[in-house]
């Protein structure tokens, strides 16, 4: 029996990796297509990449662990400021080092907000997360000597990537650098979410009492995930600092946090693909609609969101996946 079981186990595993390879290929193709289709809009695409990293990071705690938070930009902004301050005040302008510093900054912010937010449950958790983002925002505002306060932090001029590729006026280097970072993070996260640790996190989302009855520590697991999430958001924030060469207070804002959550819900909670698709859809629609109708674009975005939440509660990716599954089953 056991031999049989291990034989039947292999195809399922391979199928999972095949799907991942397809996913990575799709991201690559989309990235290349974006590069050639929108050569004048690379700045927007680059911003999209930074936000994708934030939404992926949010998905780790909200989608996989079930932690409700409206303060996730604290992790992103900390990464951005860590990288920005290192460059502007300490002369660390090597871009990969800046990203690493941002990751550490984000992880630290993740640790702090994790410890605070996880003390509450449900509504209390949400309120704590809002408090966190406001505190971080205010701290950055007050420490204007380092952060530039409400004027923003400027004077960030990163060196060429690997000493070769200079950041150009069209943002080509920034875009390619971002795509490489995104792919790297995405692959690592795919490994993470299917690992035993990822499974434990999914268990916690579905029933924390059962997980502790298995002898696992719910709190410690969640804090670990928060730190990992901070690493990812920190990379996103640092990348934003590197690519735009400024860090503004808005990166540490409640609005930024809330929008990230909206993008995640739009794309589909609990799936890395959903996080990516939600970000693309939201930023793209926002850009399109705000250009078409600068006065009522927020109304249109709001109406679209209501439509998605009402008619596709699993988000764009989740709904598409469900439909595909139903079609497959029906086809057989």
């Amino acid at each position, binding site marked *: 029996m056991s031999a049989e079981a291990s034989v039947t186990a292999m195809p399922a*595993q391979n199928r999972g990796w095949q799907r991942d390879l397809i996913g990575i290929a799709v991201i690559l193709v989309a990235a290349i297509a974006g590069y050639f289709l929108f050569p004048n809009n690379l700045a927007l695409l680059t911003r999209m990449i930074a936000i994708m990293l934030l939404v992926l990071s949010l998905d780790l705690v909200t989608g996989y662990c079930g932690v409700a938070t409206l303060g996730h930009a604290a992790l992103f902004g900390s990464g951005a400021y860590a990288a920005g301050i290192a460059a502007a005040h300490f002369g660390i302008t090597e871009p990969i080092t800046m990203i690493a510093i941002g990751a550490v900054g984000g992880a630290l912010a993740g640790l702090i907000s994790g410890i605070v937010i996880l003390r509450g449950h449900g509504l209390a958790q949400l309120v704590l997360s809002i408090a966190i983002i406001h505190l971080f925002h205010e701290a950055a505002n007050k420490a204007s000597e380092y952060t530039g306060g409400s004027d923003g932090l400027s004077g960030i001029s990163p060196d060429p990537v690997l000493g070769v590729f200079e950041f150009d006026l069209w943002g080509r280097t920034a875009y390619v650098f971002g795509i490489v970072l995104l792919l790297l993070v995405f692959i690592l996260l795919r490994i993470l979410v299917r690992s035993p640790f990822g499974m434990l996190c999914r*268990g916690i989302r579905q029933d924390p009492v*059962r997980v502790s009855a298995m002898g696992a520590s719910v709190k410690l697991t969640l804090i670990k995930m928060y730190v990992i999430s901070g690493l990812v958001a920190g990379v996103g924030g640092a990348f934003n600092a590197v690519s735009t060469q400024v860090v503004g207070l808005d990166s540490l804002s409640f609005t930024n946090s809330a929008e990230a959550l909206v993008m995640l819900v739009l794309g589909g909670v609990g799936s890395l693909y959903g996080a990516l698709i939600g970000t693309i859809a939201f930023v793209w629609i926002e850009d399109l609609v705000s250009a078409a109708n600068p006065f009522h674009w927020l109304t249109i975005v709001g109406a679209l969101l209501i439509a998605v939440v009402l008619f596709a509660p699993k988000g764009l990716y989740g709904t598409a996946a469900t439909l595909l599954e139903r079609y497959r089953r029906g086809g057989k």
Partner: protein
Amino acid sequence: MSPLFEVDHLQKAFGGLNVTRDVSLSLGKGDRVALIGPNGAGKTTFVNLVTGHLRPDSGQVLMGGEDISRFNPMRRVRAGLVRSFQVTRLFAEMTPEEHVALAILQRQGKSGRMAGSFQAMPDVMRETYETLETLNLTALGRVPVSEIAYGQQRLLEIALALALRPKVLLLDEPAAGVPHSDTFLIENALAQLPADLAVLMIEHDMDLVFRFAKRVIVLAAGEIIFDGLPGDATNDARVREAYLGGYANGSAA
């Protein structure tokens, strides 16, 4: 030698209500004990005191002579004291295979690994399917729990407890919510529990209790009123009084 599992003079009061009064009992290796009692006898409170979800006012819980009264629920599980739940607590979106594998990984200290997959660990897969096989769940290994019948979810609940390799197993109404026609499934599963495992079962289904237990403990109004052989319990005057109230005396008179 100290017994495998011991509860020593456990007391708990909620306000003025004494829900657990001076409860002492002990279990040795391989014991099959049923804890029964009328509604409101304090069985659930007792389980929560033992598993660490409630703090007793006084008294101790011991495993192999070691006082675990100050342990939180998680550490008690690690010490070998495992419970199942009265109402199934499972991960709706996950498969039985994932459930059991996760329990095994947790027991082996591998649940924190951030790379790899349990499906690529032959020893984990082998043990997972051995456990599922014991409970006749192999065919359902890859079906999400939300799609399998409640009776089989109850079996998975037992499988999870077994995968943790407990020394003492607390079964909180294993047959609750299972249609009577399917109770035999639970009974078969219980018959296959490891021989040296000490089992304390809380149950309402008397047929199941009398077939399974070698010893019966009766709890009434927070107190142990009987501890002995199942056959003697039915003839005990205090047990009859607790279950039937005045009617027991009335019919006897």
